[in-house]
């Protein structure tokens, strides 16, 4: 009901009831009966975020020493003893210098090929605190007390040489630590890619005829990576204008020399290998992500302890024998299946 109608209602004032009804309609709540007010306790239970300006940071404190004990108990299995591990997740620690702490910019980030650790990218101390608090440990998020989060944050900062071993981190000195973060000046919002109405930074033109020089191929997949994503025949439809290429080479080459994954598996060990996911990274003859089974067989053929050694390796994972890409643990495989797999791998010619 408009104000004009309201005024008329007042002027004519046929009945007090009508007048009251009109007044009630002007303040009619939006979507009546939908939702309810949150209680302060409910908001407090869920409003756990800590913002870049430290809004939302709860009181508390924790020492590097306490953080180290917590770290050993709850964090090493994924991140390593010093936050340096690359096994499960990218490393948290490494790659910064005292100069970086002085400048607030991590120099290594401007160099090509440097792996980026968390501490190299870390520009807001709130991020570390907030994320440990909301999401860690991996299998029991939101189980840490505020003091424990301070302690773990302190431990990581110490591993990154940002605070000394005697340091006690608290809500009182978080801002001081922020001023020491090695990459605190390393972020920019000066670009047009935040809002959908922003201005693009790359401006191409749509030429239609005789555009530019003859195209030159600058990159293609190396032949040894052909099987890196499994058997593509199993990833394409059985009908239509195309089929999938074989694993071994061009379509005709693969027909002449079919590789293991292209043949129907009748060997129970091979079926087991396929079912267990081994073939995602391994192949009989060719190095894919992991070594070829033939390479493994050659290396361990003379080693009488190879069977047990490799069974342990498959079960708990490993890294470094064949390169930097770690082999994930296959902890769910039964010993009997492990033995079958390892014996089969060691037989590969």
């Amino acid at each position, binding site marked *: 009901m408009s104000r004009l109608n309201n005024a008329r209602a007042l002027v004519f004032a046929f009945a007090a009831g009508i007048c009251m009804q009109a007044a009630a309609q002007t303040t009619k709540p939006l979507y009546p009966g939908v939702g309810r007010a949150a209680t302060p306790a409910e908001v407090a239970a869920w*409003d756990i*975020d800590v913002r870049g300006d430290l809004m939302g940071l709860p009181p508390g404190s924790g020492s590097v020493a306490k953080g180290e004990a917590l770290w050993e108990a709850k964090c090493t299995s994924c991140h390593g003893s010093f936050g340096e591990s690359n096994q499960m997740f990218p490393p948290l620690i490494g790659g910064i210098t005292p100069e970086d702490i002085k400048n607030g910019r991590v120099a290594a980030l401007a160099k090509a090929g440097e792996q980026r650790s968390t501490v190299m990218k870390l520009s807001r101390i709130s991020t570390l605190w907030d994320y440990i608090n909301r999401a860690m440990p991996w299998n029991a998020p939101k189980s840490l007390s505020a003091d424990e989060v301070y302690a773990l944050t302190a431990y990581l900062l110490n591993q990154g040489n940002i605070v000394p071993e005697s340091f006690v981190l608290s809500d009182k000195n978080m801002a001081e630590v922020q001023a020491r973060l090695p990459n605190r000046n390393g972020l920019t919002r000066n670009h047009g*890619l935040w809002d959908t109405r922003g201005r693009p930074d790359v401006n191409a033109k749509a030429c239609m005829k005789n555009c530019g020089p003859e*195209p030159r*191929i600058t990159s293609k997949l190396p032949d040894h990576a052909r099987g890196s994503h499994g058997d593509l025949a199993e990833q394409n439809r059985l009908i239509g204008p195309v*089929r*999938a290429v074989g694993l071994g080479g061009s379509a005709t080459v693969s027909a002449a020399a*079919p590789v293991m994954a292209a043949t129907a598996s009748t060997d129970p060990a091979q079926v087991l290998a396929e079912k267990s996911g081994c073939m995602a990274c391994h192949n009989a003859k060719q190095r894919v992500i992991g070594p070829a089974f033939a390479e493994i067989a050659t290396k361990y053929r003379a080693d009488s302890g190879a069977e047990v050694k490799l069974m342990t390796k498959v079960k708990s994972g490993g890294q470094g024998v064949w390169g930097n890409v770690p082999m994930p643990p296959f902890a769910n495989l039964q010993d009997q299946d492990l033995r079958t797999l390892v014996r089969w791998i060691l037989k590969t010619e």
Partner: protein
Amino acid sequence: MKNKVSIQSGQVRPAPEDRRGFLKKSLSLTGGAVAALAGASAARAQGDPAILKLPPHSTGLGQPVAARGYGMPSEFEKNLQRRESPGLTRAAQSSVAFAPLQGLFGIITPNGLHFERHHQGWWDIDPRQHRLMIHGLVRESRIYTMDDLMRLPSVSRIHFIECGANTGMEWGNVAVPTVQYTHGMLSCCEFTGVPLSKLLEHCGADTKKGRYVLAEGADGSGLTRTIGMDRALDDVIVAWGMNGEFLRPENGYPLRLVVPGVQGVSWVKWLRRLEVGDKPWDTREETLHYIDLMPDGLHRQYSSVQECKSVITTPSGGQVLLNKGQYNVTGLAWSGRGRVRRVDVSFDGGRNWKEARLENPVLPKALTRFNIDWVWNGGPAILQSRAIDDTGYVQPKIAQLRAVRGTRSIYHNNAIQSWLVAANGEVSNVQVE
């Protein structure tokens, strides 16, 4: 250009006698198979056995209704699955499964094939226990149940969702073989829900002081992303519907944010909380991840828009053309800034271009399907597509992107994709300059 393109064999494979025969040959051309083919040729003198001999489905009784209360794809379609890229991640709960774009039609992604990206595993949340809280710079902090939300005025809109890291493995060089892995962190659905603007109005949000909204998920990672208030009041949806049914658990059941045009990480799944504030939050996914490394070592923060992009889905990497002759070259185009205006296709690595047909509907911030006829003459070719959106923005070449952003950005690679067709019909992923 034939001389400039390096191909593996150079030999044109003889056209197969028929398509079934070709498949057999391509997989295992052994002596036995050759004999079998010869026998089949003799039988075929009278005609196709698929016609001459009536199959069981024409001569028997089929399955009853409701044999499957929730229908499933044909047994023959099981090759099309979402898949992980081996070696990309080591913890499957913090990983990604790519959608099989090589086999999809039109613009809608079937719910079971929508790409997946979780940060700490997915859950199937009881919708009766799910709550949405809105607080911060609002007149009144409020709680909504799913019952509440589904009483509000809803909209249904088709939008694409693309992970900011889609095509991220290809910044430096070709890294993966097929379009599933180069572009498969991309899907498009009709989403149903209540516009976020209505909820913010309902809570009396202070949209002058409160220039930002934080969205938070109910999963273990409690994933959080900041959305600008202009965006929040524009076309953002608090959604429960996905292609006519409820969201799938992997996609945020029972509630997720839909932020059209913006990278997938902002489409917070299992949405439990929205906070209105006067500054962006700088959460983990805004300061440590989803930041684009520039050549000078600075990271671009809040790089959110998915700029105009396209890719040919058939024929594409890892496929092989059956024989010379007619092909329907088909693909997808999209823009986070609006509608796709035009898609051009090149068959010679970008020297010459032809305009493709855009299929209806062409919707803002949605996938658009394009098609163009091509007669393959059996020679090598490099297929590319280039999309232009209604702001006039032209999808760039990889070299143009690298000139500004280097090769280590990880995120927001919207370069023109090149597929090399070799003389033997095999299609592979290449980069050209």
